[in-house]
């Protein structure tokens, strides 16, 4: 932490941008924190996977998307949607299963969509969205667009065959797909060391598929931002795929059922505590204040705004109607 604080405020990043990165991370955090309470009260159901601890990745990368860019995610997808600018009300209402949700209550937490902003969805089958992403990138190249498709997935997904088929095709056809591996050290209760024969994922992908790649500290929002700026510029110029491993840590349970008791089977409290010291929001706050880029008060005000937005989203969701019974049969096919 002290190391980070010794740095100077980066001259090339605008002051507003720094605050914006903070705002996005805080919005995601404040959005997810109350969810447990509503889950327990039966307002939400299914699987709800939190992004808490990984906010710097979505916040650092996704705001760099330009119109025409597309993105896909796994089931751990609230943060990506919020970073993209999807209305918190719509995301919360989807979690509440209401007609006003991003998918009209059909999808739930794992399947947030925002087609207008280029979010082609969150997906529940590990690795399942990665081949789709190569297809989305293919469409961009096919039409000659200078856009890119980013796809976010976990370390566990690296063990799905379809992911490797997709990466090979991306390398083969040279389509502008940015593979963002959010390596949070665990696939549910299995550590990377216990699920991967090769834990150097950059080596694994770059050697195998002729795709450029690198690692970044995914808990440092500025690093993610800097690296992403460079990668996206390169991709927009060359149209080539890229692999970015963001090293991070999930310090909450995998999902609701992965409670503190369950987590004892695979990690220690000391480990979690040590990782909490690297919290992307705390460290960034410290950085902003210690470099004079922002005052505590400014950050607190942003935080209060985020809390108010989330409170409003919850109220909106809770007061929204459930989908009509007829809607059960709608959307199986599109109308001709």
């Amino acid at each position, binding site marked *: 932490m002290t190391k980070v604080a010794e740095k100077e405020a980066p001259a090339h990043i605008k002051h507003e941008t720094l605050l914006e990165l903070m705002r996005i991370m805080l919005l995601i955090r404040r959005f997810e924190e109350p969810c447990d309470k509503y889950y327990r009260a039966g307002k*939400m*159901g*299914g*699987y709800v996977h939190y992004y808490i601890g990984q906010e710097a990745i979505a916040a650092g990368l996704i705001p760099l998307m330009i119109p025409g860019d597309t993105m896909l995610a796994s089931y751990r997808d609230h943060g990506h949607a919020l970073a993209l600018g999807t209305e918190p009300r719509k995301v919360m209402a*989807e979690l509440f*299963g*209401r007609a006003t949700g991003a*998918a009209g*209550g*059909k*999808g*739930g937490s*794992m*399947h947030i969509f925002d087609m207008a902003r280029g979010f082609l969805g969150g*997906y*529940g*089958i*590990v*690795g*399942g969205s990665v081949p789709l992403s190569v297809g989305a990138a293919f469409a961009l190249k096919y039409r000659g667009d200078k856009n890119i498709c980013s796809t976010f997935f976990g370390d*566990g*997904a690296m*063990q*799905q*065959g*379809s992911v490797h088929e997709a990466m090979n095709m991306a390398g083969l056809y040279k389509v502008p797909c940015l593979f963002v591996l959010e390596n949070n050290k665990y*696939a*549910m*209760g*299995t550590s990377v060391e*216990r*699920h*991967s024969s090769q834990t150097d994922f950059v080596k694994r992908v770059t050697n195998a598929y002729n795709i450029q790649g690198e690692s970044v500290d995914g808990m440092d929002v500025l690093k993610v931002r800097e690296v992403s700026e460079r990668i996206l510029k390169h991709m927009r110029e060359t149209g080539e795929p890229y692999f970015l491993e963001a090293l991070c840590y999930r310090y909450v349970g995998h999902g609701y*059922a992965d409670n503190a008791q*369950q987590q004892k*089977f*695979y990690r220690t409290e000391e480990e979690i505590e040590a990782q909490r010291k690297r919290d992307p929001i705390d460290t960034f706050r410290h950085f902003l204040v210690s470099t004079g880029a922002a005052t505590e008060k400014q950050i607190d005000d942003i935080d209060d705004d985020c809390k108010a937005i989330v409170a409003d989203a919850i109220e909106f969701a809770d007061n929204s109607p*459930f*989908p009509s*019974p007829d*809607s*059960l*049969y709608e959307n*199986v096919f599109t109308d001709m």
Partner: protein
Amino acid sequence: MAIMRYAEALRLAMTEEMERDPNVFVCGEEVAQYQGTFRVTEGMYQKFQKENHGLRVLDTPISEAGIVGLATGAAMSGLRPIAEFMTWSFALVAMDQIINHTAKIHYMSGGTCKVPVVLRGPAGAGNQLSAQHSQSLESWYAHIPGLKVVLPSTAADAKGLLKTAIRDDNPVIFMEHAGLYQQRGEVPEDPEFMIPFGVADIKRAGKDVTIISYSNQVRFCISAADKIAEETGIECEVIDLRTLIPLDMATVIRSVEKTHRAVVVHEEWKSVGFGAELASRIYEEAFDALDAPIERVGGPFVPMPYSKPLERAAIPHEEDIYAAIKRVIG
């Protein structure tokens, strides 16, 4: 007899068979160190840790195609694997291994290669898990020659059928139901307690209507039957098929010849579901015995929605079965 949960009965079946036969092993995601996602394999890793280089209860990466391949290849080489899917929805990424390999190898080899593998895990819908995690696909497997398809509805059946599955020399698709894991029941403690495949169980006797079902819907059938009996005195017979392949049509036909009315019930989509096959078989084999068209209860033809009221409408419940019984008695 001992009272235990469905999940415990499954664990007991696996543990007993592993103790009896050193070739039996368990593999799958989170089955060992994490004690099983639904706790079905709890304690088994610790118990068998010292044997076979620690491979008897094996954690795998999230690689379902690889898991089925590993299990099938090991079965072809003399072991008796039990591969667990965290849920059957994830078996979809292993479909080629299961359908084009596991199911067909014995036939393609002219009977020279045996594939004694059990593929098991929770299937079915519920808990707002939505479209990709919440579905029943048993008729897909029942459609494929070479696979036995088993769906226990009680703790005792879970134990007896799983033991039979493990000792069977053929690939067995063993579909549990997450909604049943915590259900308690009496389970015989005899380590040789086995339930043969292809023997349906009459879970409630009756003379007026035959209800045919399996898995989680059986209990809803029984409660609907109890309700009708209380209200009208009409007695429904509830047949739990327990195995779809092999299928015990004899028990079904015997009952229909007695009651002259049939309702088939399952959680999977009604459209092209296993109930269509059942109804058709009853028409073929006992048309003259029927006093009314067969009623079918199944899920509406939509992917599973997330929202609670929509989800409830997409899964058959007691009231749907009750209504079907009313229709069939006219």
